[in-house]
């Protein structure tokens, strides 16, 4: 159940969030940056040996079928899930209240659920130069064969820890700690100036 009558959550990016075209955009923008502001971001963890049961619960509750393999994931518009560590998954929903939906299913015998809906900020980068800009920050291979659609990665840019899901052929969703989000956003905008970017 979603919370009732709650005000809109404050975005950590607010004073630095400037919709419009920026940087070297005279010849068109090559990336689009946005904050996706999902209502729910959950961490689900399974005890060793319980991973398959957890994956089944995710399928039942969220309707997302995780593909096999470490870091596998799937993104279906409103909802997304990906593995980011052994036995651990991030599940995201546009709507609030996903934690309550899972609460009864994840029993102590299976694992734990941790609600991070406020603690992580979701930033999306899309466009033909998305890989190029991402490669300025993270030492992971963003090429499609190495980082397939839907897959998740845990990595960091110096002090900023990030979980990244490929949500499109040239689109990535980046989950960063809320307290670092504004700094990271500014750096992302700065790095995107070279290719021209639009904030939506």
């Amino acid at each position, binding site marked *: 159940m979603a*919370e009732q*009558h*709650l*005000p809109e*959550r*404050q*975005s*950590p990016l*607010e*004073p630095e969030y400037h919709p419009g075209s920026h*940087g*070297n955009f005279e010849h068109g923008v090559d990336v689009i940056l946005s904050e996706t502001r999902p209502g729910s971001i959950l*961490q689900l*963890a399974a*005890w060793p040996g319980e991973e398959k049961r957890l994956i089944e619960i995710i399928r039942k509750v969220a309707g997302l079928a995780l593909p096999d393999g470490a870091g596998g994931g799937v993104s279906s518009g409103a909802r997304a899930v990906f593995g980011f560590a052994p036995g651990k998954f991030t599940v995201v929903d546009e709507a609030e209240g996903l934690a309550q939906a899972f609460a009864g299913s994840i029993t*102590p015998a299976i*694992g*734990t659920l*941790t*609600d*991070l*809906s*406020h*603690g*992580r900020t979701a930033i999306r980068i899309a466009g033909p130069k998305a890989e190029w800009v991402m*490669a*300025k*920050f*993270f*030492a*992971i*291979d963003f*090429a499609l064969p*190495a980082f397939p659609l839907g897959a998740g990665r845990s990595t960091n840019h*110096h*002090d*900023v820890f990030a979980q990244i899901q490929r949500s499109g052929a040239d689109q990535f969703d980046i989950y960063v*700690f*809320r*307290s*670092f989000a*504004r*700094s*990271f956003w500014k*750096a992302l905008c*700065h*790095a*995107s*100036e*070279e*290719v*021209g970017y639009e904030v939506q």
Partner: protein
Amino acid sequence: MSPRRTEIGGRIDRLRTIRFTFDGAPYTGHAGDTLASALLANGVTLFGRSFKYHRPRGLLAAGVEEPNALVTVLRGEVREPNIAATMVEIYDGLVAVSQNRTPSLAWDISAINQLGGKILSAGFYYKTFMGPVIGPLKGTRFWMFCEHFIRRAAGLGKAGTAPDPARYERMNAFCDVLIVGSGPAGLMAAKAAADQGARVILADLEANFGGSANWSGETIDGMPAADWALRTVGQLEGNDNVRLLPRTTVWGYYDGNTLAALERVTDHKEVAAKGEPRQRYWAIRAGTVVLATGSFERPLVFPGNDRPGVMLAHAAERYVNEYGVLPGQRIALFTNNDSAYRSAVAFKKAGAAVVAIVDVRSDVSNEMRRLASEAEAELLAAHAVIATEGGKGLTGLKVQRFDAMSGALSGDERSIHADSLLMSGGWSPTIHLASQAGAKAEWDPARQAFLPPKPTQRWPNQQWVGAGAFTGGFSTAEAIAEGRAVGLQAAGGAVSSAPLPVVEVAPGDPDPAPVFEIKAKGKSFVDFQHDVTAEDVRLAHREGFVSVEHLKRYTTLGMATDQGKNSNVPGLAIMAEALGKPIPEVGTTRFRPPYTAVSIGSLAAERFGDLKPERLTPMHDWHLANGARMYSAGLWYRPMIYGLAGETVEQAYVREAKATRESAGIVDVSTLGKIAVQGPDAAELLDRVYTNMFSTLAVGKARYGLMLREDGLAFDDGTTWRLGDQEFLMTTTTANAGKVMQHLEYFLDVIWPELKVTVTSVTDEWAGAAIGGPNARAILASCVTGTAVDNATLPFMGIVHGRIAGIPVMICRLSFSGEMAFEVYSGAGYGTHVWEALIEAGKPFGLVTYGLEALGTMRIEKGHVTGAEIDGRTTARDLHLDWMLSKKKPFIGSAMMDREGLIGSDRLELVGVIALDNRALNGGGHIVEELDEANPHGSLGHITACCYSPALGKYIALALVKGGKARHGTRAFVSDPLRNRFGPIEIVSNHFYDPDGSRMHG
């Protein structure tokens, strides 16, 4: 027409004229020129001054190894010193100046150093300047007096102090095959690997791909080699799986096939485009590296070999064929090998007179003799150059008969009139990257060169293959064959039998005569920039500095900006001769990164101007908008005070603390580390990591906990809240949040994998506001819905859930300030909403916001410890926290905490301090029994934190002092010579205020 520009030829764009200045004088060049080629075309011969003797120097080389022609490039106030003119592409408005000369390049007063001559030999500084043993200049003073002048005379360019406005950037790249060098070998390798479908990166430090093809004058597949290179590059450009990186120097070969490269993105442009970095730092993770880095031509060592006008032969060939510039009109060559003969023909074709080819060898082949006649050059076989003539430009040289076997000179000296002397001392493969990767070079006596080793010698975690001149095959045909073979190999392709591009065979034997030095009267330079002569090498030998490293360090040979690219092998050869040993027994130095100097800004990359991210709490903008002065704590920013107009920091925090104790105050505590500890074994884990018990804690209650390190010293403290049977919220200090998290993860993963516990950082999930003071409960009562906050519902250390302004909150009644206090947690996205609602609810009560200073003041009054006391050297006992050490269970650190050194009576213990002179104390002031302002001594300990206590009306402090509690009630002194603060104090208990806690228990 420039005096030395050829009529035709070269790969410059003669239709585009570029204007630039050098040392203030205006010049023009063409697009495609380097500063070196453009100045040379303008007849400039004098480019720089040497390091020690300030000798006039011209161009030695045409590429990255240039040791002499170093300039400073200016962009407004921003200076880029020590750049080789050979690597500066000219652009309109380029401003370059020469270096290390006063007042001008032509007239340099420090050239007087040359008169010092033999005194300024290697080791000079070590043997003198010790100064007098007694008197005012004893000790280090005399040396420092001399050093002042020596330092100003030394040094090359001058660095700027204006902040560099440029942008630098990093790029992480991954590929199957990285090819370093784009000569014929590199191009063939790239083509072969790309055709296999491999992800390929081709990098070359020059602006144009092609390497030697751009100047060799050879023919490949029936077309000029340069055109063949262009065509091949064109084929590569069309490939999605190929990334071409011109102007990119691969400078470092690190573990795991990680290579570092520097791309000069806009250095050749007048202005950068918006957002374009000046330089881009590529960190490349390559499957296989193809080293096609070519080779360097070696200078010959003979008297006067440093005179402007003496140049490497292939460099001159580059100037002619690539830039359309002749180094002189009357050219003489001096060689120990065949490669110079091809150069001679090129000069002749370009319109110069080749007056002589001086060859140390007596047995010059018929093919070479034919080339000499084609160049219309007089061939002086079995001769050597023994001197050069001229001032700041060459006017002639002297030759004598020479026996290559014995090195003996004989017969009459003969003078030759020439304005350019081009030398070739053989070739050294560019093995730097392989050496960085750990490969040990092997001396090849035929090639007279260090060659890369066989694959078996490689470090197991480095995957490279070599091709072309890098391997010691100095012909283009070999380069092309090897290039394709290793390209296929690197991409996992099969050996190809398809025909190779046809190269017109360049005649010549790749093996030089083993002649490195002509011993005759006069200074013969081995290291040009550092003015190391052959005699210096022999002096090092006489004084016993014979290993290659001693030679380098004693003479500074190879330590200049070219890092021995020109001097390494000749220096070794001279030492080998002095020792009577073969060259490999003297050794070769291991090359280390970088291959060529790399700008520090490029290595800082995206962190230049942005060293560390800022960590902000959810209420950060509110604090700024409401007058907070922020304090940087680690990466966080926290309010220090909310100053009113005209208030000092002390006035502000005293007001804030006072108001809190009198009514209520609120502080942002969102930075506290918060860790969700969940799972069936959560309580068990906490019992093991905390010194006190947590399994007995009731759900809905919190407890203060202390952690020790494994070695028994205090680690961190904080409260942990039991939110459910299997769910805890642990709080840590702000500074140690990350460390505590890693500590828990380590034990769960490595030591106790059987425990079913998840730990997750939720620091950022929760906004935290601590509200305290006599009216704190009343304020909460007025705004919290869904729960009561009275003593029965919310006792000390109790937790309730409710709402403020409709937003779900979690409230724990705990106190750091010593007042009746509550921590209110809400989802971070609602942090400001809840904060503002609390402020609003507090208005009738005069609620104040307070910052770290007031927070610190109240905690000092209460005697609570923080990181200033838990400083990694103190124990629980030192801090009087031994009541927290459970005797019922083992915990991390319990076995180690009672070792003899940790329980001694002379340990520093926590005490309180009151200033008896009613003056402010300082953190870091020491405590002494006897005051001696002139010679402070006898420190008992130091002040860890201090403040003016509004509650006590006194300046107070916490301190760690020997003797601790035993000193309570005694007097001592604060001794703070650094701030000249001395005065009487009383040592008291650290619990200054409300020691029985009646205020917070309410």
